[in-house]
């Protein structure tokens, strides 16, 4: 029995699949967070988030941000993916653990770690592949694990939202009222009025949990594609407007759009000459 499992695992690790969706996700994910890190390193956003009061920038954090910008650039370009993917994973993890414990950063460290293996991992990095890296043939396990990881994130976050604070609407109430009062968020009047009502926030919160659980199921089942994309866009577009979280939202949508298997396209009949 153990040897059957071992053989299956070995076959899965050795299996290849069309790597173009994986490469597209790698580029999109890296580009989204490259934009984030470029803005961050120039204007010191994370440093300001760590402390509102005047203080010098921490040189170690700037070094991590520079490493993230360099790694992100190389991942967008598709150069030395394993080396720079691992560099980004470590830099993001250190940034989260020692400087600013943002969920987006923890998420980034896991995704960079997996993306680092999208063209063959250490074998590709050491130039030992028998043929040059080919985006059309990538390790199947990386694609599979990225889908499972995203499904787990949706399942875990939906489960942790099963609390009176979320389901009662309190969390959404706080987020939306803060945006409206503090940042003058341009909600239409009727939306602002509705979001100020705890019963409306509670209903929205319950719908959000349902949508997250549904998307986790779609990701595990690997389809239907358009249902998954619709769920992801709905969750994250509405979520971004209600919570002011944009980069994480964009990268989760990119994950669903590029990694969920697409239905086979129907061949169009050629027009008559």
């Amino acid at each position, binding site marked *: 029995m153990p040897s059957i499992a071992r053989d299956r695992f070995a076959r899965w690790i050795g299996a290849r699949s069309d790597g173009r969706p994986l490469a597209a996700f790698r580029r999109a994910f890296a580009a989204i967070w490259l934009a984030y890190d470029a803005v961050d390193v120039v204007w010191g956003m994370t440093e*300001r988030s760590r402390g509102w009061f005047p203080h010098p920038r921490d040189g170690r954090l700037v070094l991590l941000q520079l490493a993230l910008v360099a790694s992100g650039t190389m991942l967008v370009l598709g150069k030395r993916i394993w080396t720079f993917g691992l560099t980004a994973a470590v830099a993001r993890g250190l940034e989260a653990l020692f400087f600013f414990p943002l969920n987006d950063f923890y*998420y980034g460290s896991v995704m960079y770690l997996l993306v680092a293996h999208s063209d*063959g991992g250490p074998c590709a990095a050491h130039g030992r592949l028998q043929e040059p890296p080919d985006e059309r043939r990538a390790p199947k396990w990386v694609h599979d694990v990225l889908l499972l990881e995203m499904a787990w994130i949706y399942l*875990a*976050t939906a489960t*942790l939202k099963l*609390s*009176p604070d979320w389901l009662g609407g309190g*969390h959404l109430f706080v987020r939306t009222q803060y945006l409206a009062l503090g940042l003058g968020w341009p909600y239409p009047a009727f939306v602002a009025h509705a979001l100020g009502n705890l019963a409306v926030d509670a209903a929205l919160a319950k719908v959000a949990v349902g949508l997250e659980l549904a998307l986790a199921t779609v990701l595990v089942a690997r389809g239907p594609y358009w249902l998954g994309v619709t769920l992801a866009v709905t969750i994250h577009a509405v979520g971004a407007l209600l919570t002011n979280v944009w980069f994480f939202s964009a990268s989760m949508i990119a994950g669903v759009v590029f990694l969920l298997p697409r239905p086979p396209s129907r061949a169009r009949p050629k027009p008559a000459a």
Partner: protein
Amino acid sequence: MTSASEKSSASTACDAEPSAARILYCAALLAGLVLVQARAELTQVERGYRPFLHAPSRVPYSWDMFAIRLDRCVLTWDPPLSVEGQRVGAWQDRTYPIEFDTVYNRVGDYGGAARAACGFRTSARTRTSLVCATAEGRIDRYAFDCP
């Protein structure tokens, strides 16, 4: 030209038939991911998270985004403070409106920050106001003169 022995050694490392080292590497990587995230969920339970009863807290890699209990406040000062040569009438005058914001999760932390900010006042009589949205669905208002 690549010799037959070189080809053979390369294929054992990275070919479609993965070597034992490669299988071990992938198994360790995936086990690490599973362990870290499973441990994070257990930590949530250890720290008091109970479905439908008690909210989770911040635990790395548990994916508690938007799930924790929090309050948020808007701070203003009249007359404005002077911070690094900038007139600051509101907390948001020193933060960025999109994505990047400087926030706390508790009213008490905002209160502490409001008192600390009084060190940057430009007038002996400076009024500090806090408007706080709370997890109970209330908008609470507080005000005090800087000491």
